[in-house]
């Protein structure tokens, strides 16, 4: 039998045992036989005249201890068919999910058909295929034992981020709350990760740099999110219930004013008032025409928001005329500012609202729909205020 001539003392065996145990091997018997094998190699080298330190250093150079975990993984893959298929599932679902999410997002950004289903499928594959496979693989590799909290929080945070991405991309209701919950999970994960890095001595600088990068990403996203939260203009999908009433109110107000002027026949700005009415009606008619080509009613708009797979046809209808409306708005803005009797308050309103940049006519259909109604409201406000100024000042 081949047995090394030199025998290691118990304390030296303990040194080797301690280092091997850091690999956290879980396969029965493997740790013992690797320790024995390494001890034999060291004894062999010592038998050839090396000191323990030199022999041990040489053995570690030839067999890096970091690779011991890989040996266990190779063994697991060979003997456990389930583990092997789990690893395959992990790779395939990860790759397929990422490709589908990327493609789906791109298609949605350029408003091409199929973006929604692809994105949903990608997120479902990642959430129901990749993440569970990752969890099982980590459990199998016993990596969860040492970093249980960290791994579980990381997986939950990833899962909730994926769900929030799906909600945001599909414009589903309650997106804000889902995002908020996902960011809370991410925050918990980052705190745990920080604690883990501080406790661990390996690659601390690199890990801290990565953590810093994640924190910056987190802050950038949450700051934007919180900013959006306080900004009423970001309430894209919830229709302002006061809009139709506001539009009606100012339309009625203007009609009353025009009636008064036509009955008295004594206003020096009659011509301007007529042009104001005609231009305002013109731009409102164009806007209504565009708005109704998007959705027949507000109810239809709401139904569209809650639909899982959104039809493409709507955006195309809008894109062709969005530029024309933009130009009309600019012309209307210049016309209003050119009228006499513009008060400073009215000038501010016209400057800030009735500009092409103040509305987005080329966004997702429900957003555009709301913005078109906001434009109608602002036109009617400006018309009313301007008529008031022309008649009474």
């Amino acid at each position: 039998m081949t047995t090394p001539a030199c025998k290691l003392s118990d304390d030296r065996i303990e040194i080797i045992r301690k280092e091997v145990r850091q690999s956290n091997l879980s396969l029965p018997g493997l740790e013992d036989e690797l320790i024995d094998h390494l001890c034999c190699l060291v004894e062999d080298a010592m038998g050839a005249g090396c000191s323990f330190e030199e022999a041990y250093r040489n053995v570690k150079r030839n067999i890096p201890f970091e690779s011991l975990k890989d040996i266990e993984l190779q063994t697991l893959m060979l003997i456990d068919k389930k583990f092997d298929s789990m690893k395959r599932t992990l790779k395939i679902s990860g790759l397929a999910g990422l490709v589908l999410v990327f493609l789906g997002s791109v298609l949605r950004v350029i408003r091409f058909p199929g973006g929604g289903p692809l994105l949903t499928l990608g997120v479902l594959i990642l959430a129901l295929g990749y993440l569970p496979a990752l969890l099982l693989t980590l459990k199998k590799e016993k990596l969860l034992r040492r970093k249980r909290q960290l791994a579980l929080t990381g997986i939950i945070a990833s899962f909730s981020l994926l769900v929030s991405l799906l909600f945001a991309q599909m414009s589903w209701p309650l997106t804000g709350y889902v995002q908020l919950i996902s960011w809370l999970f991410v925050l918990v994960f980052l705190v745990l990760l920080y604690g883990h890095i501080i406790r661990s001595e390996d690659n601390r600088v690199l890990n801290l740099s990565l953590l810093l990068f994640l924190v910056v990403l987190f802050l950038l996203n949450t700051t934007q999110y919180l900013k959006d939260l306080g900004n009423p203009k970001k309430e894209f999908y919830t229709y302002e219930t006061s809009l139709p009433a506001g539009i009606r109110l100012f339309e009625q107000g203007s009609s009353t004013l025009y009636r008064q002027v036509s009955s008295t026949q004594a206003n020096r700005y009659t011509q301007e008032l007529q042009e104001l009415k005609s231009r305002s009606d013109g731009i409102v008619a164009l806007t209504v025409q565009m708005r109704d080509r998007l959705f027949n009613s507000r109810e239809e708009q709401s139904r569209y928001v809650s639909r899982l797979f959104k039809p493409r046809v709507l955006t195309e209808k809008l894109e062709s005329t969005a530029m024309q409306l933009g130009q009309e708005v600019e012309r209307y803005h210049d016309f209003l500012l050119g009228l006499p009797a513009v008060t400073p308050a009215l000038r501010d309103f016209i400057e800030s609202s009735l500009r092409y940049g103040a509305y987005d006519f080329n966004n997702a259909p429900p957003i555009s729909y709301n913005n078109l109604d906001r434009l109608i409201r602002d036109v009617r406000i400006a018309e009313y205020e301007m008529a008031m100024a022309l008649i009474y000042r």
Partner: protein
Amino acid sequence: MISKEILKGSVKTIILKLLAENEKMYGYELTRKIEEISGGSIRLTFGALYPLLHKLEDEGDVSTESDIVNSRTRIYYRLTPKGTKTASLKIKEMKEFTETIQKLLQ
């Protein structure tokens, strides 16, 4: 040194052959024996040896027993009756293969 690619399909047969000739052997012993017989041409790495030994155990070709030697646990491998049959089959196969290769290379 014999390349990994050529060695890959033969390691199982080599290990089974050695276990067939010896009552029981442990990991280090197997690697030394192979190195010795091959004149240093074949050196088995950890990554090649232990996954294979565990697979042979999983398939029921070898059984293990542990013993405390020099204050550490040593795992010995020995052929099971099934493993003995597998060993003779694999050795026969390998012999036929090497003969064919020899003919082809002459």
